[in-house]
């Protein structure tokens, strides 16, 4: 049985089912990260002293990663816009760029984590590092998940463009919404952990 309302919008909601689905999922994601942010506030306010992030973490590296993630959000939205303009070749370039930028982000985080672990700075070392590893680790999992989906649409999933271009465009829009959410979370994580 075909999934209903993947291309045409429902009369009652004015939306496709996929669009409602991804927004409900993102709402649950807001609560997930919200719980961790609330934990961060609770732990920080309750601590007798709290280190400034820039005394422990690498701000230039994190700034570079912020630029990388914001750039990937632009390439993502441009990939969707390319499909809207029926330029599949351009879509491939932008979507490939998005996946590569996601990979750059993860590689930088790998070196960042590696540096801290080499110095013996583990999640168990103190509360600051515990919340740092938890928040950035969960965020990295989201980046990885988004990359897998985007890579699928860049590669094997792109076959759908030939048979049902509107559905394919909708799917790319939905994966884009998730990717922008991941960017949005980092926009708040960066100053919270690295600069304050």
């Amino acid at each position, binding site marked *: 049985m075909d999934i209903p309302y993947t291309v045409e919008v429902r009369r009652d909601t004015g939306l496709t089912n996929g669009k409602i689905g991804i927004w409900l999922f993102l709402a649950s994601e807001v609560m997930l990260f919200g719980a961790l942010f609330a934990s961060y506030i609770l732990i920080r306010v309750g601590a007798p002293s709290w280190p400034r992030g820039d005394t422990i973490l690498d*701000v230039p590296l994190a700034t570079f990663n912020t630029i990388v993630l914001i750039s990937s*959000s632009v390439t993502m939205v*441009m990939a969707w816009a390319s499909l*809207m303009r029926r330029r599949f070749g351009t879509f491939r370039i932008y979507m490939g760029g998005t996946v590569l930028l996601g990979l750059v982000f993860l590689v930088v985080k790998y070196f960042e984590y590696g540096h801290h672990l080499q110095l013996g700075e583990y999640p168990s070392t103190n509360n600051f590092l515990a919340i740092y590893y938890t928040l950035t680790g969960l965020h990295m999992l989201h980046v990885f998940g988004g990359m897998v989906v985007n890579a699928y649409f860049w590669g094997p999933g792109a076959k759908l463009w030939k048979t049902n271009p509107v559905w394919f465009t909708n799917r790319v829009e939905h994966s884009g919404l998730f990717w922008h*959410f991941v*960017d949005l979370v980092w926009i708040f994580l960066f100053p919270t952990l690295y600069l304050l």
Partner: protein
Amino acid sequence: MASDHATDMTSDHAVDIDKHVRVYITVFVALMVLTIVTVAISRYHFPVPIAVTIALVVATIKGSLVACYFMHLISEKKLIYAVLALTVAFFAVLLALPVLTYSDGYWIR
């Protein structure tokens, strides 16, 4: 820019998308500038409450730009706004919990 875009790929819409692409580029530049501003401000060692306020205000502006333009929230359907309004309400309660904990238990007594 909302959901009906993906179901309408006519030439009129292509022209519309061209306009939006210019907006995306503008937002990208704004996000870059605000990132530099965030880092630059952090170099001035303001007292923690002021530093937190400034950082969160700048982050909120950046987040709003991403949500409004890249996620197309500026022209979304009412149902999406309703879902997000509910989410924001619960999110606010979640963030208020630590505050309640440090208010001598007045509100939870």
